[in-house]
């Protein structure tokens, strides 16, 4: 046990270090100059622009040699300081993330969880029911196979513009200020629904397909056959198969939740919904090193946690793994 955890911990630390370093490096390899991109937004007179650019490079420490910047990065990281966003100057990166991530989480967690739950149920249900499998399930494949943004735009146009049932922009009406009232919550939900629906629809099929395949496999397993031989009702057999088929799906879920911090760029663009995803895209476009680093730091942590959770969940949920044999080749 101890050995295992020590080793895992070391590996995770190494991964963390490598991934964060790579993500530190990547934006710096991009062409273009973040400060120029920033002040380029105001049509400044030329000398002014030069002067300001120089000052801001200094402020952001971008005038220092790369290795120094790298050292600075790690030292401030240990102090919990992710720096100041350039693109959203002068907001600290931590605050940028803190302000926008709730929107992503509010959208993605329900979407992922709902699609996961419904998709799994549906996939399990469809397996072995020829009708459903042959006719209804394919409809979900089509949704899953549809380019997300395109689908979302159609949804927005049909339900938002044509039918006018749902608003097409923002996290809540531009005409209200947030409060804890029923009307605000309703309003929020109304804005939330289309983005949620689009994510839900698109992800559902993937889970369903995975579940269907797994269930079919499990229903063919010896233990299912034996249960059948003992006259166990289909319901019970299916329940067992479902549980066992669930394991790989849990991995998938954990991985999805791991990258949740990356946000949903597509949704945010299409529905003008606030969140980190679009900011991250903008940060990349504007070479906002600090925001990029910050976001990726969280993504890295998310993925690592997800992996860790998978490791642990497997041990908890799948007794086989808990006691399994470690293999060996000479």
């Amino acid at each position, binding site marked *: 046990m101890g050995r295992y955890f020590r080793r895992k911990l070391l590996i995770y630390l190494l991964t963390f270090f490598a991934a964060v370093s790579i993500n530190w490096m990547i934006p710096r390899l*991009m*062409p*273009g*100059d973040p400060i*120029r*991109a*920033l*002040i*380029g*937004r*105001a*049509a*400044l*007179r*030329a*000398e*002014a*622009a*030069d*002067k*300001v*650019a*120089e*000052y801001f490079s200094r*402020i952001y420490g971008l005038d220092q040699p790369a290795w120094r910047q790298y050292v600075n990065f790690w030292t401030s990281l240990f102090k919990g300081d992710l720096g100041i*966003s350039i*693109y*959203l*100057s*002068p*907001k600290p990166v931590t605050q*940028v993330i803190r*302000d*926008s991530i709730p*929107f992503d989480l509010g959208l993605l967690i329900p979407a992922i969880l709902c699609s996961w739950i419904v998709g799994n149920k549906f996939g399990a249900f469809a397996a072995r029911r020829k009708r459903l499998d042959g006719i209804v399930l394919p409809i979900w494949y089509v949704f899953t196979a549809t380019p997300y943004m395109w689908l979302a*735009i159609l949804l*927005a*146009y049909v339900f*938002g*513009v044509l039918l006018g049932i749902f*608003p*097409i*922009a*923002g*996290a809540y*009406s*531009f*005409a*209200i*200020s947030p409060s804890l009232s029923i*009307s605000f919550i309703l309003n929020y939900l109304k804005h939330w629904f289309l983005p949620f629906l689009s994510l839900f629809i698109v992800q559902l099929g993937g889970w369903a397909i995975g579940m269907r395949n797994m269930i079919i496999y499990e229903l063919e397993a010896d233990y299912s056959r034996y249960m059948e031989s003992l006259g166990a009702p289909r319901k019970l057999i299916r329940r067992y198969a479902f549980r066992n088929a669930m394991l790989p799906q849990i991995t998938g879920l954990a991985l999805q939740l791991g990258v949740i911090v990356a946000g949903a760029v597509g949704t*945010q*663009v*299409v529905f*003008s*919904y*606030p969140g980190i995803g679009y*900011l991250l895209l903008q940060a990349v*476009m504007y*070479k906002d090193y600090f925001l990029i680093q910050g976001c990726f730091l969280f993504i890295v942590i998310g993925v690592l946690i997800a992996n860790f959770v998978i490791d642990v969940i497997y041990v908890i949920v799948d007794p086989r793994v808990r006691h399994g044999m470690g293999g060996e080749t000479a």
Partner: protein
Amino acid sequence: TFTRGETLYAGGGLWGPPTNWNPITPWSAVTGTFGLVYEPLFMYDPLEDELIPWLATSGEWVDLNTFVLEIREGVKWTDGTPLTAEDVKFTFDLAKTHPETYYSSLWDWLDRIEKEGNTLKFHFVEPLYHEWHNNLYNLPIIPKHLWEGRTKEAILTGANERPVGSGAYFAHSYASDRMIYVRNDDWWATEQLDLVPAPRRIVYVVIFSNNVALGMILQGELDVSNFFLPGVPTLKRTYEDIHTWFDDAPYMLSDNTAFLYMNTTKKPMDDPVFRRAVAFAINSEDIKTRVFEDQVLVSNPLGYLPIDAWMQYYDEDVVEAYGFTYDPAEAKKILAEAGYRDINGDGFVQLPDGSPIRLSIIVPFGWTDWMESIRIIASNLRAVGINADATFPDFGRYQDELFDGEFHMAINNFGSNASNTLWTFYDWLFYELGERQTSGNFGRYDNPEIFALLDQFNRTPFDDHETSAQIMSKMQEIFLKEMPAVPLWYNGMWFQGSTQVWTDYPSEHGPYHYPCTWGGRWQEGGLLMLTDLKPRQ
């Protein structure tokens, strides 16, 4: 819930969550920071070419080296403190104490400021008249009593959340997708100029895509839009609630000129004859119709916007003599005469020494209107035998290529905005050469004569029209003969209003106000537009 009839929804000038209200960092500041909250000494009306006294009631040159500014009385900061000449002086002095301030180069030629009551006397070392006049409506005046105690960092990089200005609106609140301004009912101009902005509240929304903007306009959820929206002419035919400046083409006012920069350090763009041939080859008319559905105008050969401030110097004779029009035959002729011939028979001309020409035209990927435009330009060029391709690097790479002089040809308009002086325009077009060209003259056109002329122009008193005109004519001649960059079309002052809730938007039928809500430009008419609006009955 905000009462709809009192609220104006606007968009097009805010592309990310509001994070900054510091007028000293205009590139980051939320649109409206300057204009709605902080105010300039003068407003400027590009349509009438007129400086409108604002925080200053008057300003004039008492001699060639001294400019006197009368500061308005009875103006109050929104915290109740009166706004005085001291605040104005402080604003200028700030750039002296902190040379990193964006307008600090002023102090290279400004000597000192003398304050006498409400009068400020500016003594110059060597007055740069045109630059000074441009500054008069572009500097936000900030309150001394709130800023003098701040650290350098706070001033130059702070967010200035809760800005205290003198303007018509308070920065009320914000969220990641909106900025909300609320009317300052105590505004000095209401009393002194009888101006009342109609909307009690302005909600400036963050929208990432055209689609959403268009959808919101159609639904009447967006009142003022400064987006470039394709399809407006089509939609105007079916939706009567969409308002534009002109009822018909070009629908939009012109705001800046798109130029085709040519890298004069690379062959064959180092040859003025070749550059002129390019000018003749391009069919801007086609771009105007196809790409912009006639929402823009084709530029004149000088690239001057159709505004009085600039057109007063337009020398018809020079243009007549040296100008160009779309004429592929002429382009071919020019090329042939200069020795550019198709020697190897590939259908494209080669350099006189026989080496092949292969040029690329760049615009940033994703700038779709420009992307389509350079496709047309590339095919125009190929039609006259110049082998050119349209390519679309990312913005970062585009910028690098421009700054480092690696490109062949590129479209750019970063400094050609409407202003009260041609100096801003030429300063951008012929910006001095340095190691990297970050601020203009991307083609690295090197002509001491034209640099000297520009400087001379800047030093000519603002109202010495005659001298100025002479200088300009010379510049125009050189420009047309040398063609370092080709003016193509005017990008519009994109503006669509929705008349579902508000009416009396600015238009060709009046009221005449420049309908601009882009960051840093409310003082050109956007603010006054608000005072014209009326709730729809």
